[in-house]
C-alpha cells in the first residue's frame, strides 16, 4: 500500500473516532449517556418551581421535567437561578433545558431555541387594593413607580406601554415585585397575569388587584434549549403533544395552577 493511501486511511479513521467522540452538552444522546437531565428553573417561583416545606424541589415545571426524565430513563437534576440567570445558565451549558414561564422573544431566540408553547398568558398591571389606579393612563405618569422583573418581557412591555412612569427592575422573581408593592417601594407592578394570580394566595387576602386592561396580546410560554440540541428540542415538542393527549398535561395544570390544593402537600 502506498504511503499516501495509508495516511488517508489513518486520517479517515481518526476523523470518525473524533466525530463520534464529540457530543455537545445538552443533546439528547448526551443526556441519555450521562443518565441525568439537568433542568434550570427559577428559584422561589411557586407554583412553577420552588423548594417546598420538605426541602424538595416542587412545582409545575418540576413535574413536567420529571416526566421528561422518566420518559428518557434518566435522573433529573434541578438547578435554581434568579430569572436573569436562567438564560446565561443555559448558554453556559450548566443546564440542558430551561423550564420556566418564559416568553419566546425574537431577541432571546437569537441565543437559545424555544420549544412550542406550553401555556399562554397576558401581561397585566397590578396595584394595591384601594390605591385608586383604574386605567393605564392613571399609571402612565412620571410620579408613578412601576416594578418589573429584571430580564423579563414585563420589563420590556412596561417600558413600551408606560413610557412616562418610572420603571424599577427587581432581581429574583415575580414575588419580589409583589413584596416591593406591599412595602410601598413601588406603586404598581407589571408581570404575567398567571404569575401574579398564582402568587396572590401567599400574601394577605385582598391586598392586590389586577387592572382590567392587559398589556399586549396573548404571550406564549415555552421551554428552551441550546441551539445545538436540535433533537432535544423536537423531543420536548413531542413530549408535550404526548402529555396533552394522555391527560397528564391537564392534571399538572389543574393541580398547580388552578387551585391551592397543592399547598397542603408542599
Amino acid at each position, binding site marked *: 500500500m502506498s504511503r499516501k493511501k495509508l495516511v488517508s486511511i489513518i486520517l479517515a479513521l481518526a476523523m470518525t473516532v473524533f466525530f463520534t467522540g464529540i457530543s455537545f452538552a445538552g443533546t439528547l444522546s448526551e443526556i441519555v449517556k450521562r443518565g441525568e437531565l439537568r433542568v434550570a428553573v427559577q428559584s422561589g417561583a411557586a407554583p412553577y418551581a420552588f423548594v417546598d*416545606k420538605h426541602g424538595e424541589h416542587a412545582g409545575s415545571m418540576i413535574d413536567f421535567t420529571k416526566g421528561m426524565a422518566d420518559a428518557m430513563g434518566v435522573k433529573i437534576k434541578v438547578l435554581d437561578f434568579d430569572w436573569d440567570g436562567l438564560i446565561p445558565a443555559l448558554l453556559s451549558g450548566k443546564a440542558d433545558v430551561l423550564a420556566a414561564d418564559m416568553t419566546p422573544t425574537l431577541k432571546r431566540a437569537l441565543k437559545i431555541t424555544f420549544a412550542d408553547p406550553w401555556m399562554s398568558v397576558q401581561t397585566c398591571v397590578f396595584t394595591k387594593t384601594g390605591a385608586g389606579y383604574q386605567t393605564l393612563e392613571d399609571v402612565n405618569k412620571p410620579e408613578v413607580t412601576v416594578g418589573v422583573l429584571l430580564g423579563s418581557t414585563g420589563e420590556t412591555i412596561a417600558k413600551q406601554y408606560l413610557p412616562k412612569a418610572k420603571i424599577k427592575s427587581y432581581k429574583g422573581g415575580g414575588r419580589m415585585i409583589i*413584596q416591593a408593592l406591599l412595602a410601598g417601594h413601588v406603586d404598581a407592578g407589571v408581570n404575567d397575569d398567571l404569575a401574579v394570580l398564582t402568587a396572590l394566595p401567599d*400574601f394577605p387576602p385582598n391586598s392586590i388587584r389586577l387592572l382590567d386592561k392587559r398589556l399586549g396580546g396573548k404571550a406564549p410560554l415555552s421551554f428552551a434549549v441550546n441551539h445545538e440540541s436540535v433533537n432535544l428540542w423536537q423531543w420536548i415538542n413531542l413530549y408535550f403533544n404526548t402529555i396533552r393527549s394522555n391527560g397528564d398535561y391537564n392534571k399538572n395544570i389543574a393541580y398547580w395552577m388552578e387551585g391551592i390544593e397543592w399547598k397542603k402537600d408542599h
Partner: protein
Amino acid sequence: MMAFYFSRLVEIYPFFLKGLWMTSKIAFISLITCTLLGFVLGIFRSGKNPILKWIIGVYVSFVRGTPFVVQIFIIFFILPDWGIQLEAFPAALLAMAIMGSAFICEIVAGGINSISKGQWEAAASSGLSLIQQLRLVIIPQAMKVILPPLVGQYVLLIKDTSVVSVIGVMELTRVGWVTVVRIPEGLMVFSLVGILYFSISYPLILLSNYLERKMAL
C-alpha cells in the same frame, strides 16, 4: 398575624438548619483551601523571585480591588466561555478560595517580612536548606504576627459565604431570602439568620481577640 407567621417560621426551622449546615461546609472547606493556598502564595510573595512577586501582586490587586459579588459572577457565568463548567457549589468554593487566598497571602507575606534578616542568616549558616529555614525558623516566629489577623480573616470569610447566595447556593442567607418571600416577616426571618451566623462567628471573634492579646506580649 405575628403569631401565625411565627408558627410558620417554627415549622420551617429545619430548612434554616440545612442552610446553616451548607454555610458551615462552604466555610470549612474554604478556610482550609484559602489557608493552604494563601501560605504558599505568601511565601513566594515575600521571597526573592521578582517576577513571581509581581504576578502574585497583580492577582492580589485584582482580588482586593473588585467586589466579591462581581468575582462570583465572573467565575460562575464567564468561566464556561473558557471551557470551565462549574455548578453553583464548586463555583462558590473556587470563588472563596481565590478571594480568601489573596488576603491570607498578604497576611502571611507581612508576617514573614517582619522577621529580621538576622534570623534568615543564622538559619542559613546553621546549614539548613531554604525549606528547612522556612519551616523550622522563620514561619514559627512569623506565626505570632500572622495568627491574630489570620483568625480575623477567618471570621470575614465566614461572613463572605453569604454572598455566594447570589448564584443560588442554598446557604443560610439564601434560605432567609427564599423564606421571606413566602413568610413576609422580614424582621423575624433575618433575625433568625443573624442569630445563626452570630453563633458561628462570635466564638471566632473571641478567639481572635484572645490571640491578639496573647501575641502582643
